[in-house]
């Protein structure tokens, strides 16, 4: 019961945060709302006994990525998002109903499809389990991920290098 209550509290917070991200015109507020959503999700993870994911979620998303977001927003000194010009403004009237439809569809699917879902293994989220899985069954994806990260890093470094080196 407590679990369910908490679940709904977190869920509402997550959705609220999500909506605020979109609605706020000040990008700082949007970013902060996103952090709220991230925390709410972390809470959901904890309810699902996935402590590891929850903590990593906070550390990575809230702790690192969103800080960088804020950093960039502040660096560029974006105060208030400018109103979209011309036709784009009316996208709202298309986008919102579309989102609503998608939401209804997914909701329908979720109610129809996932009625019997329950948490099978409560220790699935522990560090030990994750560590073991990463280095046995999922060792290959794990290694590929490392390559992926190297690629991303090389790319980011390349694109943001300031000077062009001149080679004779």
């Amino acid at each position, binding site marked *: 019961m407590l679990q369910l209550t908490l679940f709904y509290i977190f869920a509402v917070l997550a959705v609220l945060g999500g909506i605020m991200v979109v609605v706020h015109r000040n990008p700082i507020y949007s970013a902060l709302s996103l952090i709220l959503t991230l925390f709410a999700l972390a809470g959901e993870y904890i309810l699902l006994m996935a402590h590891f994911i929850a*903590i990593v979620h906070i550390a990575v998303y809230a*702790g690192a990525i969103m*800080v960088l977001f*804020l*950093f960039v927003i*502040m660096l560029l000194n974006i105060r208030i998002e400018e109103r979209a010009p011309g036709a784009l403004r009316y996208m709202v009237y298309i986008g919102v109903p579309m989102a609503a439809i998608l939401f209804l569809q997914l909701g329908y699917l979720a109610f129809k499809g996932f009625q019997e879902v329950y948490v099978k293994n409560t220790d699935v989220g522990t560090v030990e389990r994750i560590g073991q899985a990463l280095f046995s069954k999922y060792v290959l994806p794990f290694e590929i991920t490392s390559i992926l990260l190297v690629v991303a890093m090389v790319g980011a470094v390349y694109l943001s290098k300031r000077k062009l080196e001149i080679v004779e």
Partner: protein
Amino acid sequence: MLEAILALIKIGVVVFLVILPLVMMLILAERRVSAFIQNRLGPNRVGWQGMMQPVADGLKFLFKEDVIPGHVDRFLYLIAPGIILFPALLTFAVVPFGDQLTTYIGHTLVTIRFQIADLNVGVLYIVAVASLGVYGLVIGGYSSNNKYSMLGGLRSSAQMISYELPLGLAIISVVMMSGSLRLQDIVVDQYEIWNVFRQPLGFIIFLVASFAETNRLPFDLPEAEQELVGGYHTEYSSMKFASFFLAEYINMITASALITTLFFGGWHVPFGILEAINLPVLWEQIIQILAFSLKTLFFLFFFIWVRWTLPRFRYDQLMNLGWKSMVPLGLLNIVLTAIGIAVF
């Protein structure tokens, strides 16, 4: 139920009886030590040896006019001081300041852990929460709508992110030694030999990164008085300003406690003294807690000591040090540790 009551008691004790008084003492200590280093006296009039000086300061903060400048982003401006206190306090939740004590309370056998919450992912928890500390600074800096504050916020976010990496890398090598993410386990693991001897490089990295994370000199660029007029807290006054101050000292305490826990054997009493003199369990516990406190206090002193002896880094030096020295060293340390574990 009992668990919850115990937890609340622990929280209360730690926050109100340990941390807050300690912060007050620290403020005084900072002034006294700095005076000592600079060969002067420092505050010594209020109370014995100036002991009541922090109280006077606190009262001053409380009764000062709370100025909210007109150009700030009011909502963010107001919540920033609150936000900054939270992570600072939260980190302390998983630090074990003593061994566990099994005793009867009434008629039930209860295990009292000298630790607020014994998380199995304690180390990760610390990393996660520590990484949130920056928000207070950034939001404060942004909402003040002041270029110095803004610069302070920017600097802090870049700095914190940069030094979180070496911090994490150093912790990983410690975790590799203990094989557990639970802080209590890490402490127990250091029974024979402290990590500082097994992980000298890791210790240095962690120490330096801690300084950066707490925004203390030589890494206090976000609030550098000479350049930024106080940085992110320029526009704050009264209790709000105090909470920024408070947070910085709480962070110092946490950092010291973590250094102690991770590298200096936590609550272990060195040289097997405790084993040599056979004491009742309760006394043993108390001595262990004292040992932990002493080590922590030493590092607090160390923080202050460094502040008043080292000059501030330049910003690019700070970044270079972080990315070009600390991170590779941290990685190297992990490799060395892995080799070490594989060999022994």
